[in-house]
């Protein structure tokens, strides 16, 4: 029985009708022709949501003043702080906690950083907004890149990464990324991550969009989940050195009177108290901003992905980099409505499923770089009007997952895409037998705080790692480079922050002068903050209830 309503059956039948022919071609490795890299720009300019002039405005303060960014992002960067520096400064004299290293963020980068910093003998506090591990890391499905097969090398990984990023990447960061990659995989293997392997131990590796070699390591379609739970478990094996504070997001960074990092102000969401944490070094690992819903797009990101680290870092004067273009993942779920925006891993396409339009036709190569693939899907829906319209009015195109079992053998979908298989089964759709409906969804921040190859920012003692940073992916990240990024730069920041903390004698008097200055800049620029930031959590309450509950 079909899991799709009557209104979609006609189009579904067309997909099935063309499938045998398409399958035959796919078996001969003949797909819809790949675009030449020379053609990318025209497509992106016309169809990528972030290449349009609408939905942007200039930043009026800070190191990136004058740069045009998405309005949602500008609003948080120019938001009002949670605390009034004048009133709060009295509390800075008596910190509630003191530590060598404060890690802000409990995802992959934060956990890797905490582990490496504690390995160097430092005391660590890991503060996280939700539970430890509730992060985008856990949601990464497809895999993690590392050039470790004989017919591959860091050289090709470097080229793929920098080409995918349209040559806007920071080469030093890319070098660190690709050269550390095999070391990271080995580290994870030794920690007990269950990678997909052949019986002799050889990693089962796949390609991804924009990758010229098979380089994608996976753990079914729950690679991020598997890596995250192992890292979290390992952090919990060191309770003497790493103290975890859950539901305690940071709302402001603290400097000392000499301008070095001094710690942060945390906000305990359970009892609404503010906590002053003094630290010799701070690692920002707060992740991305999908929950800002840029241009109104749905997102694959977790509940807490509100770009907090960008706000905190920008207020202490760290420059932002490569934030012009967000990554819209080509394939977010468009049906059923309950799943709208949810990630359909690129692995579905690496395993052979093709994007197909309403009439059952191919219209793009399944593995273009993500931004190009997303733009091509938007073109097919909006300009050519060959998209499918769901009962709730969403647009989508088919992703022909049944091809996977036909190519690789029955049961492949259920095993290699176990997570997705179960998710759709809950709504009566067997993705081994019926295709999925997909549309681009806001997926990844691409850019962020500027760092060097050791995760150092321009503020002494302030480090950053993972999605909150910018430069390593340039303007567009490749599949499998984010799980890698969090591990590579989490580890590097952990090592370097420990070094910094060990040579630092003590933290001088804590200060919020940077915030006073920032507020003054806002005032002088005539900016009226629209909201309190970091926003910490999006507000999805029914607007009608909010109206009834409002007193002012």
């Amino acid at each position, binding site marked *: 029985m079909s899991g799709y309503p009557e209104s979609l059956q006609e189009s579904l039948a067309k997909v099935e009708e063309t499938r045998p022919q398409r399958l035959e071609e796919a078996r001969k490795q003949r797909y819809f022709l790949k675009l030449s*890299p020379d053609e990318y720009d025209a497509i992106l300019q016309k169809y990528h*949501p972030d290449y349009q002039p*609408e939905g942007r405005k200039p930043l009026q303060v800070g190191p990136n003043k004058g740069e045009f960014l998405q309005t949602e992002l500008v609003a948080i960067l120019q938001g009002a702080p949670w605390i009034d520096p004048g009133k709060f400064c009295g509390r800075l004299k008596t910190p509630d906690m003191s530590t060598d290293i404060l890690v802000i963020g409990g995802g992959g980068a934060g956990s890797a950083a905490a582990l490496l910093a504690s390995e160097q003998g430092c005391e660590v506090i890991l503060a996280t907004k939700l539970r430890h*591990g*509730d992060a985008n890391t*856990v*949601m990464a499905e497809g895999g993690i890149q590392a*050039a470790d097969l004989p*017919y591959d*090398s*860091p*050289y090709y990984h*470097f*080229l*793929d990464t*920098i*080409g995918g990023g349209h*040559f806007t990447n920071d*080469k030093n960061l890319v070098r660190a990324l690709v050269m550390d990659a*095999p070391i990271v*995989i*080995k580290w994870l*293997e030794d*920690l*007990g991550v*269950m990678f997909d*392997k052949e019986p*002799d*131990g050889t990693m089962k590796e796949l390609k991804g969009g924009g990758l010229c070699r098979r380089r994608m390591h996976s753990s*079914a379609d729950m690679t991020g*989940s598997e890596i995250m*739970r*192992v890292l979290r478990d*390992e952090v919990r*094996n060191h309770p003497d050195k790493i103290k975890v504070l859950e*539901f305690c997001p940071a709302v402001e960074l603290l400097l000392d009177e000499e301008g070095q990092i001094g710690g942060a102000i945390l906000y305990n969401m*359970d009892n609404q108290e503010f906590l002053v944490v003094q630290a010799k070094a701070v690692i920002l690992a707060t992740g991305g901003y999908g*929950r800002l*819903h840029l*241009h*109104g*797009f*749905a997102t*694959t990101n977790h*509940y807490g992905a509100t770009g907090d680290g960008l706000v905190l870092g920008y207020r202490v004067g760290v420059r932002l980099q490569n934030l012009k273009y967000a990554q819209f993942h080509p394939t977010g779920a468009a049906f059923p*409505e*309950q799943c*709208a925006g949810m*990630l359909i891993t690129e692995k579905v396409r690496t395993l052979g499923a093709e994007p197909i339009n309403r009439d059952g036709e191919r219209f793009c190569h399944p593995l273009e770089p993500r931004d190009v693939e997303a733009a091509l899907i*938007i073109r097919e829906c*909006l300009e050519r009007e060959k998209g499918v319209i769901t009962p*709730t*009015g*969403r647009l989508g195109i088919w992703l022909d997952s049944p091809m996977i079992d036909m190519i690789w053998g029955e049961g492949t979908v259920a095993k290699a895409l*176990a997570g997705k298989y*179960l*998710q759709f089964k809950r709504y009566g759709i067997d993705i081994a037998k019926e295709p999925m409906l997909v549309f681009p969804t806001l997926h990844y921040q691409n850019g962020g705080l500027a760092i060097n190859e050791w995760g150092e920012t321009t503020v002494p003692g302030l480090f950053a790692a993972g999605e909150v940073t910018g430069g390593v992916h340039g303007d567009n990240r490749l599949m499998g480079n984010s799980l890698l990024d969090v591990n590579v730069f989490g580890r590097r920041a952990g090592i370097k922050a420990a070094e910094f903390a060990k040579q630092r004698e003590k933290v001088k008097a804590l200060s919020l002068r940077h915030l006073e200055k920032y507020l003054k800049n806002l005032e002088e620029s005539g900016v009226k903050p629209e909201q309190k930031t970091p926003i910490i959590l999006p507000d*999805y*309450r029914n607007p009608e*209830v909010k109206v009834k509950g409002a007193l002012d």
Partner: protein
Amino acid sequence: MAECKYTVGDKTIVPPGTKMIPIYIMGKRYEVPEGLTILKALEYAGYRVIRGCGCRAGICGACATVYRLKDDYRLRFGLACQTTVKPGMYLTQIPFVPANKAVYDINQLTADVFTIERLYPETFRCLACNTCTKACPMDIPVMDYIQALIQGDIKTAAEISHSCIMCGMCTLRCPAEIQHFHVAMLARRLYGKYIQPKARHLEKRVEQIKAGKFDWMMDELMGLSTEELKKRYKEREWEPEPYDPHWKPKETKYLIIEE
């Protein structure tokens, strides 16, 4: 580009005329549109969830919810972000499960039944009642992996439990007070570290990198102009897809192939 009617953030589109149904959140009645997930129904009712919501995509295990349906004695389990509301459903979220994780040095363990016994001795109290399996929102045969562990079959336990999201519902329901999700975590790490064969090519590659064998390639890339990088990117050799085991690359200058 057309005005973005296709972009509505996280809002669920509720077509006009959608039926409203009653649900009971911790006993309190609310009318919500049919078809919402429990999480979105909570938000529709005006809840701002802090604990009890994480990834919103069925993988983090933060939003485990227990519920009963009208006129049905069965206690049911689901993820709030994945389960659709039903008329008369009464529910509560369980945002936290008290459980003790054993602290261990992963490098000092043996992958056998004795490690399980030492770190999680309560595992062996299993009554084989299958209540854990019934409580799993991921449809994992939980009891089967506990039974496998009791027999020292760590491989089976690791494989069966691979899609565990550690929400802890099994552990709350267990009459023998087993801490399933923690012992399964241990089993998977033991399997990944000690039982799965090591990737020899990976070890080799790490040695090569540490010996500096790729440094010249990186130095070369760092020195290239953007134009030259673009050229190399465009001309790089592609491994065929799907996978062809007989493929041999023509360009070998930037490879290190050692037996």
